[in-house]
């Protein structure tokens, strides 16, 4: 199957792709795009708008009001005026009257919200918030700690505790995560590997779909432009398909290797000291495995994309007929993305050794936890077995489809093609 004709097809494919503007642009743009998405997501999640927030804070004791006032005055967002607070002291009856009187101002956004700290809060730590938009979690996140501080101060004021004791009580609980693995010493786990796992899944997903669609379109073009008959008078369809797929896959792996370079530099040198919360526990072997896995994935999926291209003779039909492939790429991708919650649950475990899915899930999983060796081996065996089974099937569909013209075939007919003598 591999000979000088395959090589010629492969060379053309490589030359065509590596020197194309799309390749160079994509190689540069995709990392920007991924970090752009990350940044955008973070920005959207923390966005609170420029609007000024006008709060009214009410307590039942003058002393409590003053304490809150002095605590708030030291907060940055109060200092900048982003949140302005009007302090009042009144009992519960006058408070409910006050609410009634100011209903209009609240509804018209002159008052963004009213925080009411009843005396009871010194017993049950419950305070109230009145607003048109009461689910303002971002605001609560900002105010919880200072308000808690004030309540603790007042609560412990007459209990004769040292400042040290109070500050211990104030401290939040924090999990420090340590990864236990066989070959390395126990290390503190940061965000780094979560980002790597996200990166692995996203790059795999994006590259497979992107390269696959290009492949499919190239095949449709050859079929549509009738080049294929000229080609087939020189090479046979296996040589043609193999050459195209290997050429495309080498391009894909090369691109991926370029993207992996910064990661390799970071983990193998000490020039770029990452802050401890972003430290990455990853070996060079894992990156090489990732690239190898990607190469297998490319050959597997490119064969299928090529056969879908061969079934249809125009881009539109091909785009709408490619959904089965999209599904077997997307479902594992979503599993991989959702894995950060618990990378060792059973769905992930099975998925990382399941045909097709393992190609996408295993790399993300191995960057989060130490995957047992036997599971890695099963994953590799499954991947190669899948490739060996699927490649001849893709080849057959490609062979029959590529010379088939006329009306769009149904899936049932495509299955029948497998029995054709070609």
């Amino acid at each position, binding site marked *: 199957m591999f000979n*000088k*004709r395959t090589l*010629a*097809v492969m060379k*053309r494919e490589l030359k065509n792709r590596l020197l194309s503007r799309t390749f160079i642009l994509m190689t540069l743009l995709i990392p920007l795009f991924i970090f752009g998405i990350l940044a955008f997501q973070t920005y959207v999640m923390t966005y609170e708008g420029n609007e000024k927030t006008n709060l009214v804070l009410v307590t039942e004791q003058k002393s409590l009001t003053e304490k809150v006032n002095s605590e708030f005055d030291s907060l940055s967002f109060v200092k900048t005026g982003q949140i302005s607070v009007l302090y009042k002291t009144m009992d519960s009856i006058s408070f409910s009257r006050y609410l009634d009187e100011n209903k209009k101002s609240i509804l018209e956004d002159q008052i963004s919200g009213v925080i009411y700290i009843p005396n009871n809060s010194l017993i049950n730590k419950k305070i109230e918030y009145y607003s048109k938009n009461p689910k303002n979690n971002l605001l609560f996140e900002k105010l919880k700690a200072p308000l808690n501080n004030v309540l603790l101060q007042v609560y412990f004021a007459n209990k004769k505790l040292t400042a040290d004791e109070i500050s211990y009580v104030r401290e939040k609980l924090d999990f420090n995560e340590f990864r236990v693995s066989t070959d390395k010493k126990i290390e503190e786990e940061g965000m780094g590997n979560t980002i790597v796992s996200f990166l692995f899944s996203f790059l795999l997903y994006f590259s497979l779909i992107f390269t696959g669609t290009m492949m499919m379109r190239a095949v449709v073009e*050859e079929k549509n*432009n*009738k*080049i*294929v*008959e*000229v*080609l*087939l*008078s*020189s*090479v*046979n369809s296996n040589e043609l398909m193999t050459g195209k797929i290997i050429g495309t896959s080498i391009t894909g792996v090369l691109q991926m290797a370029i993207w992996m370079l910064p990661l390799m530099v970071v983990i193998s040198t000490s020039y770029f000291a990452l802050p401890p919360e972003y430290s990455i526990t990853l070996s060079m072997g894992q990156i090489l495995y990732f690239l190898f896995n990607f190469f297998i994935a490319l050959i597997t999926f490119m064969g299928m994309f090529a056969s879908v291209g061969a079934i249809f003779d125009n881009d539109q039909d091909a785009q709408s007929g490619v959904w089965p492939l999209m599904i077997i790429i997307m479902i594992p991708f979503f599993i991989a993305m959702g894995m950060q919650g618990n990378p060792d649950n059973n769905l992930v475990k099975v998925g990382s050794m399941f045909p097709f899915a393992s190609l996408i899930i295993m790399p993300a999983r191995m960057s989060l936890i130490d995957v047992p060796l036997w599971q890695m081996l099963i994953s590799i065996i499954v991947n190669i077995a899948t490739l060996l089974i699927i490649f001849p099937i893709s080849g057959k569909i490609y062979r029959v489809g590529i*010379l088939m013209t006329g009306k769009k075939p149904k899936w049932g007919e495509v299955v029948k093609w497998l029995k054709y*003598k*070609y």
Partner: protein
Amino acid sequence: MYVLEVKELTKSFGKIKAVDHISFTVPEGSVFGLIGRNGAGKTTTIRMMMNIYLPDSGEVILRGTKIGQEFKDKAGYLPEERGLYKKMKVWDTLLYFAELKGKTGREIEKKANYYLKKFELFDRKNSKLEDLSKGNQQKIQFITTILHDPEFLILDEPFSGLDPINTDLLKEIILELKSQGKIIILCTHLMDFAERLCDHIALIEKGKIILHGSLSEIKTRFAKKNILISCEEDLMFLKDLGIVDSVMDNGNEKSIKLKNGGEPQELLRQLIQKNIIIKKFAADEISLHEIFIEATGEDKRLNTEGANV
């Protein structure tokens, strides 16, 4: 000596039998015409000869051995439906297709330049194909077919879409290649071209070969039976003659069909005996077009196809 023997080739697509036990032979050094209407099975036959399709049964023998990659390397194939990579440059295209045939290097580059000059496309060698006119794209396609110096040339409707000047250029090159000893297989539904270029033909109709042999032999076989006479007298009396099958009066020209075994010489003797003044007596004017009609037994449909040559 036959260079190619096609034996009992059969190919079905689902329930449709595209090619049905086709057999013919291509002699050394000939221009061979595979002639038939659109959809008769020409392209399917060619594809099986080129090993693009596997036949359901039958085989193609090249000088005693079954065809395979060797034949592909030695053959240049110009399919009816042409195509090249639109975004590829002319020069790259030529070298790529030669490389697929296993030919690379200085020799091929020299030849590519030679043909580009011959087709007046030398100054376009760095253009992308999509920037060339349709006719020029066809010329490039033809160059890719012959650049690797194939021993066999398989041309499927080579003249379709060419203007008269380029048609002549192409014909000239085909004859030049013939004189170099190449074996040319010409697929066409244009009887006119086939008649002028081919020395052997196979007529294919509904997936079957209905006529096969050297053109001159076929012509004599058919010509014996058809005679064209120009005269003013009424010739209807010939009907009663034992050797005559039918008489058609077209005014000044009468066309007479002889029965099998009937000799034109005998007819001429009868006419002279009756003192008929004959202005023209033609016994060999049957065209491939007429042969085709007679062989297929279908008159009108072919007329419309063959007429606009």
